[in-house]
């Protein structure tokens, strides 16, 4: 009983760490414009819209976070082998991984923006100075909890994978959850803030991103402020739920029904999430309604 209680406590802590990691990951990727909406940041100068948005999407979020979390996990493991205190090792290793992220961000911004030279998009040195360090700070807040969570899973829950391997697994999953959940909000609600609320961006508007703020030109730092209100927390909840329920069902039900307990619990959880999804889908159809009359469409068809 005591071990189950301990396991649930660790599960809750790992879920909380994952929530922080997910929220910071999405905010970092939006400040650095690393998600899919960056296609519009890259496209805008080609359509004649010069901007001051950061642009570091030379890699998707999942492989980038796979790299950074794995570097942190590998270095932390090496420190721990030499006898360093695990907490100190995790902090220092995460800081070292963030220097790699900083190099990545700087070279990616310079490379991507320089490729737009023939469309007269300048490389802004002050943008590199002001935004790169902010993405690094957010990346630290994402990577440190993620690698700490991996360490907890091994040290307290006895997962067989070594730390670096768990870093790859959960780093990629962190990037996948963050980009899947957060990207639409950054892309539609922020980059195309001038478009109507409650509808997708018409394809004809592509490239015409919002470039001006209340005073002066819009900065990528404002994008982080804006998306931290919904996309960041939503990504955090997404990744937190994934980690929490993955651990929870195993810790609590693994020994039930000759090993099938955790699987049955997983099936039940999937069905519950499916029912919630169907409920909100129907709720949206009822409350928002169709964009055009269905009967008129049938007549015209």
């Amino acid at each position: 009983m005591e071990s189950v209680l301990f396991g649930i406590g660790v599960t809750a802590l790992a879920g909380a760490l994952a929530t922080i990691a997910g929220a910071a990951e999405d905010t970092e990727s939006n400040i650095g414009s690393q998600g899919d909406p960056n296609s519009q940041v890259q496209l805008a100068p080609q359509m004649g819209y010069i901007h001051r948005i950061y642009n570091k999407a030379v890699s998707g979020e999942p492989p980038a976070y796979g790299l950074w979390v794995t570097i942190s996990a590998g270095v932390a493991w090496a420190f721990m082998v030499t006898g360093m205190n695990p907490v100190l090792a995790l902090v220092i290793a995460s800081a070292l991984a963030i220097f790699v992220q900083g190099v990545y961000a700087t070279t990616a911004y310079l490379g991507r923006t320089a490729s737009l030279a023939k469309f007269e998009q300048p490389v802004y040195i002050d943008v590199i100075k002001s935004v790169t360090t902010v993405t690094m700070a957010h990346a630290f807040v994402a990577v440190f909890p993620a690698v700490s969570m991996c360490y907890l899973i091994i040290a307290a829950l006895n997962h067989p994978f070594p730390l670096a391997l768990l870093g790859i697994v959960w780093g990629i999953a962190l990037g996948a959850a963050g980009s899947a959940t957060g990207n639409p909000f950054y892309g539609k609600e922020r980059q195309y803030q001038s478009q109507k609320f409650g509808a997708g961006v018409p394809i004809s508007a592509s490239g015409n991103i919002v470039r001006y703020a209340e005073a002066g030109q819009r900065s990528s730092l404002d994008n982080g402020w804006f998306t931290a209100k919904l996309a960041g927390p939503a990504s955090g909840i997404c990744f937190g739920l994934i980690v929490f329920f993955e651990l929870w069902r195993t810790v609590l039900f693994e020994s039930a029904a000759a090993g099938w307990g955790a699987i049955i619990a997983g099936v039940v959880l999937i069905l519950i999430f499916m029912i919630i999804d169907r409920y909100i889908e129907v709720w949206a159809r009822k409350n928002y309604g169709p964009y055009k009359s269905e009967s008129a469409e049938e007549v015209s068809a």
Partner: protein
Amino acid sequence: MTAIEASSSGGEGINPVASVIAIVLILIAIAIAYFIAPPVAVSALIGVIVGGLLIGFGVHFVPVGGAPAAMGQSPGIATGVAMLAAGAGLAGLFGGAWAAANPEFGFAIVIASGAIGGGLLMAITCLMVNIVYIFGMGIPAASGKVAKDPITGDTQEAYKSQGTEGHGLPFISYVGGVIGGLLGGAGGTLIYYELLKLYSELLPSILSAEAAQVVPIAVSLAGIFAIGMFLVNAVLAAYNITGTIEGPHDPKFKRFPRAIIGCATASAVCGLFAILIVVV
């Protein structure tokens, strides 16, 4: 045919010559394993090939909208096919590897654990995508590929906003995402489990060590090969999809036989190398 003449959609049919070459390559890989490795290696290679098939097939179920989905211009999850599938499959591998570490659990429990791990990640991710679309952006889900949702029968056309191909995840896409996660998780775990068994059996004699001593090496090797092969198969399937797919109701879904042949071949060749490192 030049690149300009080639269809941007990548074509639909199966190339018979390429398919025959692929099958010959698979048979050669199995034959090499049969003649130079112990029998356990052949069964491991077949497990790796089946795992690769499951991953390649599963990726076609995952509703991925890429960059257009991030602007609410097309349905699906706003990220890349290979990366989303990898995220789900690796979460499945995490669960499967945990179950495989328990000696009391057999093959079925290990594979089912991996499948549920991948399915659970997709179930939560797809739900959060719809929550952001509906409550954050005020946009209902609508498919651009079918007039009615094949599962619920909901009409789709009127719920598409002007100038877009749809948005969000209609229920069929949600179910497709979960199925894709289940198949990806099961496939990745199958590769891991087969290689783990092989390494656990052969490494003690190679390293002149006790069985318990080689467990960390066997786990690490099998884990990294499973992750690598997962990415190989996910990327191959993503090339077959060419960009975005809504799920099992998307016309692009019919291309999956071609991906299965490609993934089986890639898995056979990669699997052979994974076997040779402990045999030669």
